């Protein structure tokens, strides 16, 4: 921070000097440096014509004239310097932080605080998208700017929602009736063109844990955010029937006014963080309500203690692991001691250990602290018999499933049995691959060989180095570490590299930048120098009619569901028919149908002769689709590494 502020002073000095210099230059150019003193230069006078007849260029340049010009510029230059001095003296960031909480320019200050906090995320986003561009093998400004902008807008929406549910800009506070956390009476929810849920009748009791399950797009989020109020008040959703949250009519009271007793943890917690440190984040709802800083600090410390995150309080918000970030988001939603806590897919990003911890926290909140906890989730297996009931959403209706009932798991049971994939000759050799981020070694001397037609699952906890390994195979930094079909991937040309290896990163949306699916496919064809991406994508989605395919090609890529988008990215990355396909966390956040879809794509890629490697901590998915599993821990591959025979 200090550096930036001093840099401000330095540039003020440069600007002031530049101003004086320019003044002298103008005078020399436009005949104003004559007068007494020593004659420095005797330039010929040139008189202009027409409307500029009063202007004469050049003329004699004297010491007195130059000195006079410089002197006359000093008052303005002094003003520039004075403003430059303000920088090091005034701590603008601290002023903004204070102004954002109270005072007459809260909007502007808060917007600037957010802008300030967005810079690192923006740089990060640019860095990621540049890698994605390289992975896709494409160029041009659109492929960089559009994904960054999409992420920016997505971040703004997430931030806005997270501020709204924590009471930002509230002008009043609603009075809760704590004994009835939520009741829904003959509720229908949807947008103007269609209802996504109809005739829902539900009562939520204090001290209960409710799990809401259903496929992607079935209406889990709609149901949750109909209770948080974001659906009606921020997203322009339409509600029919009556929803009462702690006795307050949901349709007439916006989320910001119920922030005192409704806690919301959003799906992408990292995007919803509004502060710079964990302590600020936890205390945000209290601080913007104007609670005295001492009380905020006490409450935050107490809360952090209870959640076991006291050691994180001074941590930068960007330096949290996925599990820690999830706990911090839960803490931020709990700081006002809510009656109702709404949690949208908390486990999607987490590894086994973090899952257990988050489930434990949520379970204790419900059964010990008496909070009514409502959770949307794909993966019900992790929850075991803990939920008091499960609401399964199918075909626009909510089905109440009793406690402990095990009727429908992730839905992989009804998937076709894995077909035997014919494993072909070795197509890739990886020798002594290491990756370090700064001082930390992410991948330590990894060696393996891959055969055409196999699907290898790389398994291990978060931070084991799975992603780093995949990235290093796709973009090796050293020679002779990755050989695919006899080609050294390091130093190979863009196109031949695309034919050798393709990686679908975890943030696969980074690879999309066009406004229609058709355009994405067309660009992929062009970049790969081949054709057929559109046909491949349509086939992957099971669209066979020409009319259906045309309709699909006209859609906006971001309007597709997560599973469909992943298939689109897979189709794009398969467009160059790579010998090795690497996919990072292919099943993350996908429902049963989408998992089957993606699994089938991976199988098809393998059947057509590619060696497929997936990094996953999804045991079911790996068991279902992989022909071979390699375990990874602390950067080391510790399983037999030869190709299975």
């Amino acid at each position: 921070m200090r550096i930036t502020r001093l840099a401000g002073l330095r540039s003020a000095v440069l600007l002031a000097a530049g101003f004086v210099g320019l003044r002298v230059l103008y005078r020399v150019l436009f005949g104003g440096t004559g007068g007494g003193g020593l004659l420095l230069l005797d330039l010929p006078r040139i008189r202009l014509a027409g409307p500029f007849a009063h202007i004469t260029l050049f003329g004699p340049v004297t010491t007195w004239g130059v000195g006079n010009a410089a002197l006359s510029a000093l008052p303005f230059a002094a003003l520039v310097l004075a403003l430059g001095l303000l920088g090091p003296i005034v701590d603008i960031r601290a002023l903004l932080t204070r102004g954002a909480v109270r005072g007459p320019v809260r909007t502007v200050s808060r917007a600037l605080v957010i802008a300030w906090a967005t810079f690192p995320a923006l740089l990060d986003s640019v860095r990621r998208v540049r890698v994605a561009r390289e992975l896709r093998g494409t160029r041009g400004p659109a492929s960089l700017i559009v994904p960054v902008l999409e992420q920016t807008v997505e971040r703004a929406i997430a931030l806005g929602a997270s501020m709204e549910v924590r009471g930002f800009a509230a002008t009043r506070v609603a009075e809760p009736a704590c004994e009835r956390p939520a009741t829904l009476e003959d509720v229908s929810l949807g947008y103007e063109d269609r209802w996504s849920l109809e005739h829902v009748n539900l009562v939520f009791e204090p001290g209960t844990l409710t799990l809401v399950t259903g496929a992607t797009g079935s209406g889990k989020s709609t149901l949750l955010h109909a209770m948080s109020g974001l659906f009606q008040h921020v997203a322009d959703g339409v509600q029919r029937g009556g929803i009462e949250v702690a006795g307050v009519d949901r349709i007439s009271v916006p989320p910001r006014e119920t922030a005192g007793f409704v806690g919301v943890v959003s799906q992408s917690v990292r995007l919803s963080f509004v502060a710079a440190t964990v302590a600020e984040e936890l205390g945000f709802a209290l601080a913007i309500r104007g609670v005295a800083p001492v009380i905020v600090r006490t409450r935050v410390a107490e809360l952090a203690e209870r959640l076991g995150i006291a050691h994180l309080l001074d941590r930068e918000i960007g330096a949290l692991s996925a599990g820690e970030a999830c706990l911090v988001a839960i803490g931020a939603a709990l700081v006002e001691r809510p009656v109702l806590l709404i949690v949208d897919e908390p486990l999607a990003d987490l590894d086994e250990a973090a899952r257990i911890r988050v489930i434990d926290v949520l379970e204790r909140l419900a059964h010990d602290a008496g909070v009514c906890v409502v959770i949307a989730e794909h993966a019900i297996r992790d929850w075991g018999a803990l939920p008091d009931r499960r609401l399964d959403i199918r075909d626009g209706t909510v089905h109440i499933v009793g406690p402990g009932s095990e009727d429908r798991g992730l839905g992989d049971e009804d998937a076709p049995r894995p077909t035997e994939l014919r494993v072909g000759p070795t197509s890739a050799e990886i020798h002594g691959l290491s990756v370090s981020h700064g001082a930390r070694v992410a991948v330590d001397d990894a060696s393996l060989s891959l055969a055409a037609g196999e699907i290898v699952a790389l398994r291990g906890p978060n931070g084991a180095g799975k992603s780093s390994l995949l990235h290093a195979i796709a973009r090796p930094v050293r020679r002779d570490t990755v050989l695919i079909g006899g080609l050294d991937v390091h130093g190979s040309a863009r196109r031949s590299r695309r034919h050798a290896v393709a990686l679908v990163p975890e943030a696969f949306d980074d690879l999309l930048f066009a406004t229609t699916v058709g355009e994405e496919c067309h660009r992929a064809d062009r970049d790969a120098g081949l054709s057929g991406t559109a046909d491949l994508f349509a086939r992957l989605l099971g669209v066979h009619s020409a009319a259906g395919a045309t309709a699909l090609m006209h859609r906006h890529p971001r309007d597709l569901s997560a599973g469909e988008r992943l298939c689109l990215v897979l189709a794009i990355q398969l467009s160059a028919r790579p010998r090795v396909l690497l996919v990072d966390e292919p099943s993350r956040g996908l429902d049963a149908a989408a998992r089957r879809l993606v699994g089938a794509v991976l199988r098809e890629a393998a059947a057509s002769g590619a060696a497929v490697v997936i990094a996953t901590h999804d045991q079911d998915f790996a068991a279902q689709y992989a022909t071979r599993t390699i375990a990874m821990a602390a950067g080391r591959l510790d399983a037999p590494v030869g190709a299975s025979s």
Partner: protein
Amino acid sequence: MTGVLDGLRVRPSGGDHRWSRWSLVIASILAIAGFAWPLVAAAVPKDAQAAVPVVALALVPAIAIAVAFGLDRQMHTATTVALLGVLAAVGAAVRIAGTGVGGVEAVFIVLILAGRAYGARFGFLLGMLTIALSSVLWGGIGPWTPFQVFACGWVAAGAGLLPRIRAASPRAARRWELLMLVAYGIIASYAFGLVMNFWFWPFAVGTGTGISYAAGAPLGQNLASFGLYSLVTSTLTWDTVRAITTTIGILLVGPAALAALRRAKVGRSRAAALRPRSSEPRGGGTRTRRSTARDAAEVPPTAPPPSAPA
């Protein structure tokens, strides 16, 4: 990666008061007077002429602050604040990155597209915040900053005020809109240079040269002097570079960027028909949907004016 409201649609909103438009217009007129002080100075009595530049240097920042205070309350909703914040960061990043490459002022691309997508008032604030933030971070604060703040606010707001395009097909409408924005971008690039030069020219040149501002001289002579100054210092160089950058930028990223920005507010007019509480006027721009009856009572139709412009 899916968003927090995956499948839900969101848009920014702000206050919906007629007076706010007028107060913005009045503030802009006052600011224009500040920009045009060399003309004003010729009209005031000789004794007062010396004070005019000083008044202008103080007036414009005062109006900028007054506008910020006035708009602050109206834009005080979570989504608007969040969008303003992240887009100001993008704008500032683009501006700071651009200063390193010979004044390729790509920031206009961000301002014009965002102003177009979210309306004049949002654009105005975004322009102001972008310049303020980038100046603080990069250290380019000077007497010119308030003037830049205003000029960039106008550039973004102007894009929001451009007419809605009606065409046979959405595709044609998008194409015409893009052409309109490119034309606007070129005009705005040169106009920005001209208005920034106009107030700064007497300060930059000082007295005693052929192109100096002469308070008593005929208007034609002063304009000719200004014209030559402007031509030499910016119109042929910076402004042309800016116009080219803006044109290329809007053509290359415009369609996708507009689509991305508008995705944050889809469904506003489509949703209005079904909702019983939709008393809002239709059309673009950033307005509050008073979501509730109680809320509506909270915000009286004649809210108090913002802190009076200086």
